[in-house]
């Protein structure tokens, strides 16, 4: 146990063009999260956000001004990208547990679709680690992660058609999520007819780009913060081992940091993989989500596609995976959507933005609430970070 919990969650609409500034989006999401926690903005005394390559999310100083904070004991704006979704929660939990802060706001907001950032790859003089990628045309997440997925497919005799059931299932979950951007049901045939982007990935294997903001409030679990946690943080870790150009041995070339982090995360939470009810796992591409499923111990080696096909990882399966639709169909706010969904599934009253009117019906034409979950896990990119959440007692 970390002595911390999440006391509030908030999000803006996920759109193709927000017609808002990032600080406006972040403030909307923050105010909703703070109100959800039953707090006032001035109860926030720590701010954490993150970005990839170029800062697109509002910096803490902008949020101090926008929210009118009167103290800020910790602020952090790091460049780990989606890998840092869980790291941000881990740092926030450590800060409130140590008494450095009372309530830390973890947020991210960007107009990734309407105002895409100009990556440093736009220059033609790659230095440092970039001298090993960009001269070879490798300037895209698909070529950063695709090779490891290709090794996984080859080792297990799988191919792109084995990605389709997960893409279709996550879309079905997004149909039941009013904030999701992609809500038209997908078929296996549509997945297989979608164009190749960077093989092994077709268009419908890729996460979507969107505008939007999300925020969560991390508070001390003992109530000293003035907020009552919606869920407890049983364990949280965040640090990277992997580097895409690092030499590796040829065996299990597809092993990510997840394979190292997950066992340690579970050990600290005092659980095993089989205890998990809900798993919200980073999904930049279908194939990466499958690697995360296996390396978090939720399916045997090479068996994640079959497990999805058999319904084992659906809303009524043995563990429900990416119940909101994930980055593939809900939208991409750097993994905070996975955190928020884990909280929603575990909180009293459950998910608030499915199609149920009143109590949850568990009718899968309207309801995406998993039945009585006790534990949820989320992970960031490559399993570089991860969090285990528990239902608040």
């Amino acid at each position: 146990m970390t002595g911390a919990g999440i006391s509030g969650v908030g999000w803006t609409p996920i759109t193709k063009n927000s017609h808002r500034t990032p600080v406006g989006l972040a403030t909307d999401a923050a105010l909703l999260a703070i109100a959800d926690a039953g707090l006032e903005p001035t109860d926030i005394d720590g701010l954490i956000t993150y970005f990839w390559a170029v800062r697109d999310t509002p910096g803490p100083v902008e949020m101090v001004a926008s929210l009118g904070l009167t103290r800020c004991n910790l602020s952090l704006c790091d460049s780990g990208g989606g890998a840092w979704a869980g790291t941000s929660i881990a740092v926030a939990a450590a800060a409130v547990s140590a008494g450095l802060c009372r309530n830390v706001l973890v947020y991210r907001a960007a107009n990734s679709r309407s105002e895409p950032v100009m990556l440093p790859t736009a220059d033609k003089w790659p230095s440092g680690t970039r001298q090993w990628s960009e001269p070879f045309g490798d300037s895209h997440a698909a070529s950063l992660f695709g090779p490891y997925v290709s090794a996984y497919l080859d080792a297990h005799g799988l191919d792109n058609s084995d990605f389709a059931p997960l893409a279709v299932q996550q879309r079905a979950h997004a149909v039941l999520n009013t904030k999701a951007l992609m809500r038209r049901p997908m078929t296996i045939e549509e997945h297989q007819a979608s164009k190749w982007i960077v093989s092994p990935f077709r268009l419908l294997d890729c996460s979507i780009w969107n505008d939007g903001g999300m925020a969560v409030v991390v508070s001390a679990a003992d109530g000293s913060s003035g907020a009552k946690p919606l869920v407890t943080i049983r364990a949280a870790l965040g640090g990277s081992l992997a580097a895409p150009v690092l030499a590796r041995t040829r065996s299990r070339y597809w092993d990510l940091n997840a394979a190292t982090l997950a066992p340690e995360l579970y050990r600290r939470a005092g659980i095993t993989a089989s205890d998990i009810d809900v798993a919200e796992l980073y999904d930049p591409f279908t194939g990466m989500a499958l690697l995360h499923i296996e390396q978090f111990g939720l399916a045997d080696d090479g068996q994640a596609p079959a497990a999805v096909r058999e319904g084992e990882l659906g809303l009524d399966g043995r563990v429900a995976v990416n119940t909101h639709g994930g980055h593939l169909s809900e939208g991409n706010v750097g993994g905070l959507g996975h955190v928020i969904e884990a909280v929603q599934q575990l909180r009293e009253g459950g998910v608030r933005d499915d199609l149920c009117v009143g109590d949850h019906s568990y009718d899968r034409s309207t309801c995406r609430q998993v039945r009585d979950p006790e534990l949820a896990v989320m992970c960031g990119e490559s399993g570089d970070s991860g969090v285990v959440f528990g239902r608040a007692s």
Partner: protein
Amino acid sequence: MKFPKPVPQPDVDTAPFWSACGRGALIGQRCGACGLWRWPPRSHCPSCHAASPVWESLAGTGTIVALVTFHRAFDPSFLDDIPLTVIHAVLDGTDEQMVLQADLRPGETGARIGSRLRVVFDAVNGMRVPAFTLLDSKGSNS
């Protein structure tokens, strides 16, 4: 309009590699103290932490351990190369520790994990960068 391709910028740690490429030679780096191969090149051994890198000539052959194929060009300077296969090649003679990411010669098809390779060098704006050709399929120029 023809876009220039990215040109790698050598630094103190990597200059010997790029310089060797310019001579049409592929070299790898290992620790001068404990002998461990490492990649990419850098000052310190990640195992014994000695700062005594040594460079050794390699045969220039290897095996594909992972690959992707671009069906569209995200960098317009690679437009003429599409479909472009980017491979991870484990290089012979490096205790399977040196995995170089590079392009397969555009137009070569049939690359798969386990395919054998030989290095070639392509001129890019005054530098030469390594690429690979398949050793054992039709269409290779080996």
